[in-house]
């Protein structure tokens, strides 16, 4: 089974906001929290030109990159058409108000 690592408390991530985890082997991983408290994680690197997705605006299950406005699906890491490309996603879960990421 997956080995889960504790990252932070759910309340540490603002709703419709994010937090960046510095994971040595993965680089920067952005962790997002949606308005209904779902949590998602992916590389903090826009598939377009590497913009920091953690600084984008989160809406529904998407984040809009702050650099050129690509929309990236939070659940699949895929750029929303007509843009193409994708971002590596990581498994995360919330238990008792704490956020864990799969190692």
């Amino acid at each position, binding site marked *: 089974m997956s080995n889960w690592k504790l*990252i*932070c408390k759910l309340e540490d991530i603002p709703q419709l*906001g994010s937090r*960046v985890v*510095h994971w040595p082997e993965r680089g920067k991983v952005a962790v997002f929290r949606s*308005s209904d408290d779902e949590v998602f994680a992916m590389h903090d690197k826009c598939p377009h030109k590497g913009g*920091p997705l953690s600084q984008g605006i989160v*809406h529904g299950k998407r984040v809009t990159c702050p650099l050129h406005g690509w929309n990236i699906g939070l659940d699949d890491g895929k750029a929303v058409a007509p*843009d193409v*490309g994708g971002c590596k996603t990581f498994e995360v879960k919330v238990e008792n108000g704490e956020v864990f990421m799969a190692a």
Partner: protein
Amino acid sequence: MSKPRLVLIGNGMAGVRTVEELLKIKPDHYDITIFGAEPHPNYNRILLSPVLAGEMTISEIVLNELEWYKEKGIKLHTGKQIKTIDRAKRKVIAEDGTEEEYDRLLIATGSTPFMLPIPGNDLPGVIGYRDIKDTDEMIEAAKLHKHAVVIGGGLLGLEAANGLKLRGMDVTVVHLGPWLLERQLDEVAAKMLQKSLEDKGLKFLLQKQTEMLVQGESGRVAAVRFKDGMTIPADLVVMAAGIRPNYALAESSGIYCNRGIVVNDTMQTYDPKVYAVGECVTHRGIAYGLVAPLFEQAKVAANHLAGYGIGRYTGSVTSTKLKVTGIDLFSAGDYMGGEGTEEIVLNDPYGGVYKKLVIKDNKLVGGVMYGDTADGPWYFQLLKDGRDIHDIRDQLIFGQSLVGDVGHAGNSKAASMPDSAEVCGCNGITKGVIVQAIKAKGLFTLDEVKKHTKAASSCGSCAGLVEQILASTIGGAYTPAASDKKPVCGCTEQSHKAVREAILNQHLITKEAVFKALEWKTPNGCDKCRPAVNYYLISTWPHEAKDDPQSRFINERSHANIQKDGTYSVVPRMWGGLTTPNELRAIADAAEKYNVPTVKSPAASVSTCSVSRRKTCPASGLTSTRPAWSQAMPTASRFAP
């Protein structure tokens, strides 16, 4: 009275574009018939690469659905190859005997992959890369086989190799030249490109000459053998060593050809009733293999077919981009330089950025960019305009934003582009045309702009820029009166005005209340409406509504401008460039505190700093950072005297 008849041979990108241009300027002039050898409606050949890479599907790349042909009254014969042009009787005859008479004939038969004349080039498993059939075959091969060899390290070869690699094959690119893309790149940029493709798992054999393809026991190709005796396994060989214009049909009917159908500046062949466009053509001795020039040809041909006789095609300077996701590469014009030219080079191998501009007589004549191609279209525009650059020469290499000193994020870039600047290189659409269409037709989404102008509808790499133009034309929170009735965005039917009024009249003070009262279609809006709603809330009810940082663009949240590499620049206010020693010290202290690597002080004072506050989670030992805006960022106002 019956209409004159126009027959098009070749249902591809250049031919159909000509018909579209024609219908735009003279809709009912001809009875139109189109023959296409492929069993498909016109599709975007360029996007076969993302299809192979698994990023798009065939249905997404169709440009003209069958309904379009019906709607325009065009008789379409798919899957029918024309075998004969009878110019005396003015008719064309297809393989299956179908005949069609014409008053004007348009030939747009494109080109075919060049298959190296080596033993084994006709074995099963050896293909070119040109159409849907080839793409399907590669996708199938990737499911069953392991080793792929791509012959040719040009744009097409690299895109094929990338796609096959993404489909799980072990891919080797064989290239005769000394470096990859030698027709687009100089050696330095090519080496950087090769390195990053190697990081993606591709293998390269440069300066290798293929001797033969070896057949395996199954009858399929099994190996590639080189002149130096080396042999590598291959279950799939893709030849991407160049293309050959399809002019045999025209030549056999007696139309003058010379390595292509020869046309004049009106795209007319030596037979005045016959026009030709696209890759099958040579114009002033040049055959083009990219869509942008072909679409320019299409425009001219359409005008002459319509009988207006305006416009001449005088040739094109081309620019190219490699469509491999994650790799940014741009080259244009004379990128190698030589006699009488000067070069400006910026080389940052560590940061993965290389830019070279070639200048001749104070004009930009070419350039190569790797890693950071944002300014590509701007350089390309300077190049095409032949603008004298001696006044901006010292800053030219740093790009438009520095030269123009216009802000930092992308937004200001779209806003500051002149109307004549080209936005969509594939389709030759300028900013002016896009802005005009947005205003005149009330366009609101990227899709609408695509539909109406064709911008961003080919390779799509300018989609971001088009969106910025949309944003700067119709505004986020700052909507011009003209679009008063238009919805704010796809999340609602309400206009900006209606939202503002509702906030005021119904005393709404949170975004949730706004979304509820106005029946928003999405739970929490999007990047267009949330900032607007937040802005209206705090400006309408400044003491009651709470600012929502999650609804602000990062530049506003942090009072700093995000840069391409994700760091921020902060501009301390110094009125008229004057400051006191104390204030200067305060800036230095702040810069030191936040580890600002450099502080620049040209006309405007800009300092770049990347701020991150780390906090270590005791349980996992992982470090995580709160987004910059929730930390104490040095802000412009802190420095304000």
